[in-house]
């Protein structure tokens, strides 16, 4: 296979684009990220790998806003992310300038995915090593959206999804436990999914909510800790209920 993974413009005999697949590997090594769509809110959560003692953790924001009504979280090569995010931000403003309307979530997702695809079909470049979770509300409607893109340039809409490390476990959890939620319940669901694969505690996860009225709100560590405590309490109560009361029969 060594001959077919050098230049990405080359297909392998069995139809693979190895560079794209290797990019997906890079994503699998990146930090865990989860997105959950509620009826009135979309929540993004990202694992924060332990920050060095001397590092200013505030400079490492992993959930970024692309426009007033669109936010993005990603897993994979963070340097590649900077490039994509910058291009997306410019496109958001450019769209506003030319058509006097903010972008829809689908439009900007299509744009980012298009960029990622371009780099799988050019000579001398490598694909972007990241998958993105894009959330937002379309202008003029109150419909929340969650989209995912990957290094191959494919994108689709999701009710809830995860990417990065242990994304399979998180997705399994979401598939088992997803139901239409709103407000705080959606946040809890996202945190519960993340806690499946991340050490618990506000220090290790970053959560942000996107609502129609207030835009993007990054939760403080204290807020996250409070919700995590609620979740632990609920879990403990559920465990106790299972073991506790005497068997009926």
């Amino acid at each position, binding site marked *: 296979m060594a001959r077919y993974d050098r230049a990405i413009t080359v297909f392998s005999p069995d139809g693979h684009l190895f560079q794209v697949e290797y990019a997906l590997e890079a994503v699998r090594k990146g930090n865990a990220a989860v997105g959950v769509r509620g009826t009135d809110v979309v929540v993004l959560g990202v694992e924060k790998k332990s920050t060095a003692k001397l590092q200013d953790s505030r400079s490492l924001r992993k959930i970024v*806003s*692309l*426009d007033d009504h669109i936010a993005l979280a990603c897993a994979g090569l963070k340097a590649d992310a900077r490039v994509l995010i*910058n291009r997306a*931000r*410019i496109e*958001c*403003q*450019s769209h*506003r*300038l030319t058509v006097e309307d903010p972008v829809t979530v689908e439009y900007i997702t299509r744009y980012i995915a298009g960029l990622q695809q371009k780099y799988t079909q050019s000579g001398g470049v490598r694909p972007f090593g990241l998958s993105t979770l894009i959330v937002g509300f379309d202008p003029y409607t109150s419909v929340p959206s969650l989209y995912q893109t990957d290094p191959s340039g494919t994108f689709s809409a999701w009710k809830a999804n995860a990417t990065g490390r242990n994304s399979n476990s998180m997705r399994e959890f979401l598939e088992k436990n997803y139901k239409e939620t709103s407000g705080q319940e959606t946040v809890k669901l996202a945190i519960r999914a993340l806690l499946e694969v991340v050490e618990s505690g506000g220090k290790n996860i970053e959560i942000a909510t996107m609502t129609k009225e207030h835009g993007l709100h990054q939760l403080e560590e204290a807020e996250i800790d409070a919700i995590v405590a609620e979740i632990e309490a609920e879990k403990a109560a559920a465990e106790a209920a299972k073991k506790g009361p005497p068997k009926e029969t």
Partner: protein
Amino acid sequence: MECVFGLVGNGFTIVVADTSAVHSILVHKSNEDKIMKLDSHKFIAASGEPGDRVQFTEYIQKNVALYQFRNGIPLTTAAAANFMRGELATALRKNPYSVNVLLAGYDKETGPSLYYIDYIATLHKVDKGAFGYGAYFSLSMMDRHYHSGMSVDEAIDLVDKCIVEIKSRLVVAPPNFVIKIVDKDGAREYAWRESVKDAHAPPS
């Protein structure tokens, strides 16, 4: 016959612009807002070629927004003024924008400010400024009555004096004006001064 003027008061900046959109002898509309919000604490009051005015100010507005998303903090008024001047200067010797701009802003650290930027990329930080034929009258009025640290009421009083001068002494004076104010609470519309309302379609 466009009139744009502004002044800096105690913790605020006021800009005033006429609201007529004119083409040769025809008035297209008399409620055209020529003062664009650049961000939460900045206004551009622009006068000049209508196409250039909208094109240039919208372009600046979107670039200022982009800066804020990229850097997490808004541009200072001085930075925005210099950016605008730079864009005008770059275009000047190729295909110039025929737009004169008064940039009014409020920064937490430095307070209110007003910048005079004309179509050939002159940039001045001023306490009071004006563009157009109306400038002959409003500038003279402000020279006489302006003092630093005016209150909002005093400033509005001066603005009204200027508007009266323009309306009575300029041969094709615009009938309507809009007044906007920027202070620590943000950029917002203050009032309109209207002599002529657009005629509504007659009931059928």
